Each structure stands twice: as structure tokens, then as C-alpha cells.
């Protein structure tokens, strides 16, 4: 398994020390020859350690992005634009209705709601890897330094991010606490726990969810979300199209999401574009 050192650490945390046969770390920017192909990893900006893969062969360059975003995030390395001939891009939010707002505006809405309803608790559904840490960091950057309570599933990776020098402030376990002690506070839990028995320990919670899907009001309503926060770790439509254009690629393969619209956009601009359908990817509200 070839990956950045942080990705290897995260995989071991999540899936166990021996989850892959063997690991080969490759630092960002280091070049590795595999046969006639030279491989290097470049920041994807999605989460801590996430990488795009550049493959060079005979003077041609192909980049596979994996999940990425280009807007700033102090919990992940900043996305690096890698010029290439073939660009394989994700398309999770590959429709022009997805235009993510400045995440700090969303955090301000959250904090205003917390201040306005001190008798309730705000529980934010956030994916345990990346999203949870990003949301916490944004809350800290907005000047909110009260303790934030974590569902058990969030603890390990928050600890790892802290070890990597990302200060997430005063984090506490949500386990075994008096119900009333959550009032006026923020709790972070995986989205699946929001509608599970776990959430019964919370006093009249305002259910929040941090996700790019929250753009669509009916989607938010459908998932029982009272305060949607449009905070995403994936590129929105503008980032996708800007990045495709900036790579200079003449061929674009689109995968992971709404391929049709992005392929259409590419072809309108004279790029050779194809959808790359992968099995096993259905819409996931936690993204």
C-alpha cells in the first residue's frame, strides 16, 4: 500500500495496524519509479494527508485526484494544482446547484443558534474522519472555546489530529454525563448516531449536519436535520470546473458522483471527457 505517512497512520488507527499487507510511505512531492512510470503524491486538500496521484510516462502526465477540495482548510494540506494531460476527477458535487458558501458563515449561523437557544443542545452530525476535526477547528477559529463533547467514535481520530499539531481545544467525552450538562453545548457525533438511541441522552437537541448535501433543503428535511450546515470536504461545482480548466488536461475522466453534468461541461469546452463508472459508490449523506 503506497500512501502518504499520515494516510498510513489514519488507516492503522481505523482498521488496525495490519490492515494492509505492507505499507510504503511516500512523502508529498517525492518521486518513485515503478517500472517506466514515475509516481508522486500531491496534496488533495480533502483531509489530513489526502493525496492526488501523478503518474508520468514517456513525457505524458496523468493525475488521479481521489476526493479533493481547493478552498482553504487548516486541518488539511492545501490542494496543489498539478498540470497534466489526463485528469481523473471526482464529481461528488458535480452539478451547478452545488456552490458551497464560505464555511465561516455556516459556523456563525451555528453559533448564533447556540446562543439563541441555551436550553437546548446542538448535536452536529459529522463524519468521524476529517469532517469532525474540520468543524471543530472552524468553531475554534470563530472564537468559541467552550468544551465540545464527542461521541466515542470521534475520539481516536481527533486525538490523532491533535498529535499532528492541529489544536482542537477542549474536547470531552459525551459518555456518562448528566443530560442537563449538555444544555447550551455542542456535541459532535457520526450522522448515523443522530437518529439512533445514542442521541436520547441529549436534552431536546437541535440536529445539525455538516455536509455539502445540506445545500438542498428537502434533503436536509428528509434526514431530519433542523440546522443544515453546508460544510464540505469535496470540491463544489465551481472548484471542479476551475480545477479542470487549470490543469490544462485535454482528456478528463469523471467519477464518483454526478458524472453526466461534468462530462457535459467538459465536452462543451472541447475536452475529451468520459464518465468512469465505479461499482459500489452510492450517494452517502455523510460526505
Amino acid at each position, binding site marked *: 500500500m503506497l500512501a502518504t505517512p499520515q494516510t498510513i497512520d489514519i488507516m492503522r488507527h481505523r482498521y488496525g495496524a495490519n490492515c494492509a499487507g505492507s505499507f510504503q510511505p511516500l512523502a508529498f512531492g517525492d518521486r518513485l519509479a515503478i517500472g517506466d512510470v514515475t509516481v508522486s503524491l500531491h496534496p488533495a486538500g480533502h483531509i489530513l494527508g489526502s493525496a492526488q496521484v501523478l503518474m508520468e510516462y514517456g513525457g505524458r502526465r496523468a493525475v488521479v485526484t481521489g476526493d479533493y477540495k481547493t478552498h482553504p482548510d487548516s486541518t488539511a494540506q492545501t490542494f496543489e494544482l498539478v498540470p497534466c494531460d489526463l485528469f481523473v476527477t471526482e464529481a461528488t458535487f458535480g*452539478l*451547478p*446547484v*452545488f*456552490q458551497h458558501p464560505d464555511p465561516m458563515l455556516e459556523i456563525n449561523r451555528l453559533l448564533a443558534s447556540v446562543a439563541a437557544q441555551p436550553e437546548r443542545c446542538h448535536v452536529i452530525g459529522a463524519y468521524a474522519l476529517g469532517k469532525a476535526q474540520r468543524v471543530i477547528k472552524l468553531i475554534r477559529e470563530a472564537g468559541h472555546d467552550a468544551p465540545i463533547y464527542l461521541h466515542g467514535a470521534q475520539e481516536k481520530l481527533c486525538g490523532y489530529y491533535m498529535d499532528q499539531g492541529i489544536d482542537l481545544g477542549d474536547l470531552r467525552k459525551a459518555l456518562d454525563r448528566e443530560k442537563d450538562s449538555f444544555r447550551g453545548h455542542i456535541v459532535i457525533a457520526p450522522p448515523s448516531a443522530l437518529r439512533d438511541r445514542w442521541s436520547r441522552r441529549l436534552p431536546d437537541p437541535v440536529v445539525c449536519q455538516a455536509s455539502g448535501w445540506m*445545500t*438542498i*433543503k*428537502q*434533503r*436536509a*428535511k*428528509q434526514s*431530519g*436535520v*433542523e*440546522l*443544515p450546515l453546508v460544510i464540505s470536504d469535496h470540491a463544489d461545482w465551481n472548484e471542479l470546473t476551475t480545477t479542470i480548466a487549470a490543469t490544462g488536461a485535454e482528456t478528463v475522466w469523471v467519477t464518483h458522483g*454526478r458524472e*453526466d*453534468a461534468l462530462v*457535459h*461541461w467538459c465536452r*462543451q469546452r472541447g475536452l475529451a471527457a468520459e464518465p468512469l463508472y465505479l461499482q459500489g459508490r452510492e*450517494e452517502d449523506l455523510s460526505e
Partner: protein
Amino acid sequence: MTERMTGGMKDFAALLETLVLTPSRNAKIAAMAAYFRATPDPDRGIALAAITRDLSLANLKAGALRQLTMERVDPDLFLMSYDYVGDMAETISLIWPAPDEDADGELPGLAAFVSDIETLPKSALAGHVAALLDLASPAERWAMIKLATGGLRVGVSARLAKTALAAYSGRDLAEIEKIWHGLEIPYTGLFAWLDGTGPRPEIRHGQTFHPMMLSNPVDEERDFDRLSPDDYQAEWKWDGIRVQLVIDGDRARLFSRTGDDISAAFPDLVEALGGRAVLDGELLVGHDFDPMNFNHLQQRLNRKTPAKSHIRDYPAFVRVYDMLFDGEEDIRDLPLVDRRRRLEAWMATHAGTRLDLSEILAFNDWDELAALRRMGAETHGHEGLMIKQLQSLYVAGRPKGPWFKWKRDPRLIDTVMMYAQRGHGRRSSFYSDYTFGIWRGNEIVPVGKAYSGFTDGELRDLDKWVRGNTVNRFGPVREVEKDLVVELAFDSAHESPRHKSGIALRFPRVSRIRWDKPASEADTIETVRKLIG
């Protein structure tokens, strides 16, 4: 909240978002009450009309907005987005290109927004609206589009909005209901009365629609044990349209259940009426008070002005069953038995050729009534029965207890799912709208569409089945393997040249999903034809 808001689009958009997303009825009421308290006239009245869906601007239609958007956004991308989002207003509000940083200006208040759109010449309208959309946030765009095009769906009924008015003012909800239909947007007089700064608005009863009293379905298991047959009267339930007749001398108006004036489609009826009264009854077509098939009534209803041949072949009449006003006298607070006596007396002099009194059926106990219901369905094709408490007052809305409808048992057929389409609104990510078919020889032909009758859990299963069994895609529609049998329930079947099967079903809904049944055992066109009539 002590500060008065500005009546701006931002506050209204925030209110709508709260209403859409908050699951709690009380929180919705509180949010509306706070908004009415903080927002000045006439803006709050415009907001109220939008929420009760009484506001509709003639000048700006959804099609024009769509056109305007397609001029700025690639039409293919727009349509793909609409298919995904499922709501036109939300699609436009999200896809509208973000304005330049230096876009300058201020959005108008609600009332100014509405009056600009209604008074601007058509030629200037598109530019005006585009400029507003440029200035707005996505939430404000959505609010403006919904204001302009109507059809606001934020999980608030007109009734709940009036409940919020009652909560906001401390006035009685029933008092608000009584005058509601005589009021005009932006309800300045109503708000003055609610605020205690003006008198109760005067309504001319003889000229306005009054909200109807509705019934609840009988729960056969539970209701009959606790109800005494002596306290109730029974009538046939007719397969027509519930209407209210407001007769004011030589001027009569006909309103649908929702308060729409449908007089223009039935001049033969309204011109034949006289006297002074507000009556409740069933609109039917037929000669000599013998009702014809509902399809003929439907044909007349769909036309703004009826063809002469329709008036001749399908004359309209009303089978009257209740009276709200006797002359100028409001008798809604009298018990049904007394209202009925007044109605009979009034009909004796005013019935004429187009009004017919609904017959009261004699019965001694519920079993006898059940037999009557069965006989009526089998030999006369009746829809079922209405059962009304003799002492019931005429109360607007759907109070639990006084009135029941006891429909005939639905007809059931086994069909095969053919196509599925994504739903809208809350169900926009689910394939929830289905087309079903039956066998005609060796092929399956469509017989009807159904969107309801299943639980949320069954919807998830159906959605999953559709995704896993798609054989073809036509835009938003998926064609599926002809493998899944679904039992459809419906009220009646009619001839229909517009359907490939030649049959149209009334009110089809999913009754059971037959995961167990092979498609070959679904019903045939021959068996379904026998249910026509």
C-alpha cells in the same frame, strides 16, 4: 425579539427555512407568531397570504423564470440539476450565477416586491427580476420565486397559519376562521383587530365562501362500538364534487371545497337559482337528478366556459345536504337536525329544477347500515355512506367525531410495476411515483399511476428495488423489469381513450406489495374491464 424587523426578504426567507426544517408544530406556530409580531403591515399580510397559498401573481409564472434562468445557465445542466433537486424554485435559487462582488442595491420588502411585479410592463419584468435575483442570497431567491409563483410548501397548512394568528393575538381560532374567507390581502383590517387597534372586520356573509366542515373515515373496528345509532343520520355518499352554494337573490356563486369560485363552468346551474341562503351539497351532472358518471362532471369542470353540447348532455345539479345561512341568519351554531328542518323548509319554496334534497336513510343499528352500504355499492354503484351526528354544529375544518364517511370497500387488482420516477419535495431522492400495468394478451399495458399507500419503510424497499432492476432510463423516468406485482386499490374504473389500456382508475393507491407473486399472475385487461362503472 423587541426590535421590529423591516419586512424584508431576508426575514421572510429565514422564516420559511425555519418552517421547512423544524419538525415541531409548536415551534412552527411560535416562529410565525414571532414573525407577525415583528413585521409591519403590509408585508406581514403578504407573507401570510403566501403561507396560506392565497397569493398568486398573474404577471410572473414559473415558465418565465425557467426561461430567464436558461438564458444564463447551460440548459442541459439546468435540466440535470432540476431532475436532481426536484423543485423548480430551489433549482433556480441554487443555480443562479452568484452576483459580482460589487452588485449594489437593496432588496424590496414583500409588499413592494409584489406590487412592482404586478405593475411593471411585461417588457421590463425579466430584467427587473434578474436584477433582484442577482442581489439575493439563495434563500432569498427561493423566497422571492415562491412569492411570485405561489404554491409554497413549507409544511404549514392554512389552518396552522391561522392557529399562529390565534396564538399571536389571543383571539379564538374559530372566530378567525369565520371571517377568513371574506378578507382581502394584505389583511390590514384583520391584523388591526388581532392587535386590538381596530374592530372585527365586517364580512358580507351572503357573498363569501365559508370554510366547510369535513368528515373523517370510519374506523370500523373501533368507532361503531362506541357510537349509538340513534344519535346519527345516514345519507348516500355521492361521487361528485363537494360544493358550497352562496345564493344572494338573483346572484349565485358556486365554490369548491377549497374556496375556488367555479361558477363560470356551470352557468346552467347558477342562473337557475334564487332566494337567499348558503348551502352545502354535492355537485353532480345528469338528467332528472339521476347522476351520471364522474368523468362527465370532470369534463365540465375542466372548462372555463362550457360548450353548449355539454350543458345539454350533462346538465349540472346539486344534491343539497346542509345549510349554513338561512337568509342572512347564520345557523352554523344550530344542531344538524334543526339545520336540516330549515333546509327542508327553504327547499320547499326554492328547490327549482337544479336542487335536490339528499335523502336520509332509515336504519336501526350499524349492521343494518352495513347491509345498506353493501347493497348501495353493488346495485347502484354508490360510493358509500355519510354518517352525521344529529346534534353536530357546523364547524369549519375536520373535527374528530361528528361526521364520518364510510366508503365502499375499494376494488383491488394485481398489477405489474412498469416505470418509476423520482418524487418531489420530501421524497425527491426516492423513486416514489410509479406506473403500473396489466396484461393484454402477451404484453403489459399501463393502467394507472400511484404515489401513495405505502409506508416509509416500503418506500425505501421499492426505491431500492427500482434502482436494482432498472432496464432503461428516459430522463428522470426509469423503466424496470416487469417482475414486481403490486396490488392496487382504487375507488372506481372508467373508460378512457387516453390510456393505452382504455381504462382509467380513480384514486389508485398501493394496497400491498406482492413480493411473493410472479408477474404472470397479475390481472388481465378482461378482468379489470368488468370493474368499469
